């Protein structure tokens, strides 16, 4: 069962905990930003761990696919991944979705 205290990387653990505290405190947008920050850090360390979109034509098992939900990721050579927020505010369900995705991804990456 995924829990933030399973995250070994201190910065990632802090970001995930902050994301959780934010949605619990009614700060959904702040929560999304913290979760996205964690995911970008993960993607910088492990560029292939999260797919930005599913590759068609494969019968492979599911990989991790970016949730979308109004946040895009820009990749540029020799640059860390960058988030592009398509809007200013997010809902509680979107915050929880990003939080859960970040939590599971970081734990699965064994960070």
């Amino acid at each position, binding site marked *: 069962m995924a829990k933030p205290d399973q995250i070994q990387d201190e910065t990632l653990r802090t970001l995930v905990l902050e994301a959780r505290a934010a949605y619990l405190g009614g700060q959904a947008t702040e929560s999304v930003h913290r979760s996205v920050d964690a995911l970008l850090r993960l993607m910088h360390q492990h560029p292939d761990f999260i797919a930005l979109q599913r590759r068609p034509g494969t019968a492979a098992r599911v990989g991790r696919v970016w949730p979308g939900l109004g946040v895009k990721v820009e990749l540029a050579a020799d640059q860390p991944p960058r988030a592009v927020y398509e809007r200013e505010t997010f809902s509680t*369900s*979107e915050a929880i979705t990003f939080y859960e995705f970040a939590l599971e991804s970081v734990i699965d990456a064994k960070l």
Partner: protein
Amino acid sequence: MKFGLFYELQLPKPLDSDQWHPDDERRLVMETLEQIEFADKLGFDYVFEVEHDFLEEYAHSSAPEVVLAAASQRTRYIRLGHGIIHMPPVFNHPIRVAERIATLDLVSNGRVEFGTGEGGDTENTGFSIDVSRKKAMWEEATRESLKMMVQVPYEGCDGEFIKVPVRNIIPKPLQKPHPPVWVAASRRETMFVAARFGMGALGFGFETPEEAQERIERYWELIREECTPIGYAINPAVTALGSLMCCPTNEEAVTKGLSGAQMFGFLLGRGQRNYGRDHFHRQFKALSEEGRMSQYAQRRGISIVDEEPEDESARALYRASRRGGFIGAPDFIRDTLRRYEAAHIDLVLFIAQSGDRKHEDIMPSLELFAREVMPEFQERHEKHRQWREQQLEGVPHPVNSTI
């Protein structure tokens, strides 16, 4: 553990024609009603019907409230569930959702299960909905629709997607404060959204009972620790979904049921490119006849050439249709169900009607399952109910689950 049926109203095009025959859709709906009526008599607890638009051959169920209302008059006990209603307001304004849910609850003598969801991308774009906002739309519309079912008068809303002045939405549902509420949870994360909002999770994404158990433990932990209900009562419940064909022998079940399960997955993964012109049934048959479904794949219920859908929700449903755990003789099905029972699944929903399966094969399959598999799980359900009570100890919210 309880059992139900799950309907897409799948209708492959006939191989001898480019379009359906004139009577095909009427026959499909009437056979569906006959199956639901039979399931009610056999003791199945639930039937859920989807809402889909534009998905030719895959789902001809675009007005489930009509079919469920018809089913209500042919049944007495079976719960009637939306699996799910598309909640973005352009699809279904929350006022109309509240009105229809309440009316269905009245005509069915209080048997509605209020399943909610965002809708797939093909459908959302068909209604010109920004798919990046569909989750936020679902959340706002579901919350307001539940208020409309309860408040006298409804306080009104000046939300991001919905603006409604003060009005009394009538009629009110028979079930108080409102019918049990669910959310389609094919994405792993959505199951945990469901727990935090006190909603049942119509789980379409489980791979194995063991994976289900891990998610269920977390689901109930969140119910206890972080639940802020989206409505006025909570419906803590988790479902699993699989394709059912129960026959006296495994071989007969595979002969009568596997193709339908494979076609379910094939139809789900196709996407719609030439509306009104595609013939997916012919494409599926061509793949089968070319022998590209290997002996191994046929035994496992897996096609080695099919693409998994890109959309995660669709992919989850695709996998549910492929798993062969409920295609077999009673002993085979029982063994799989015991593993789900051990994982504390509340409700297993079966896709009985799918692809090219015949109505005359579905009916005896339902009967054999009900006679030889279901009873032991019904007898043990009280034990499961006690387990649920333990999970709910200390939870301060009213519970209106029908599990």
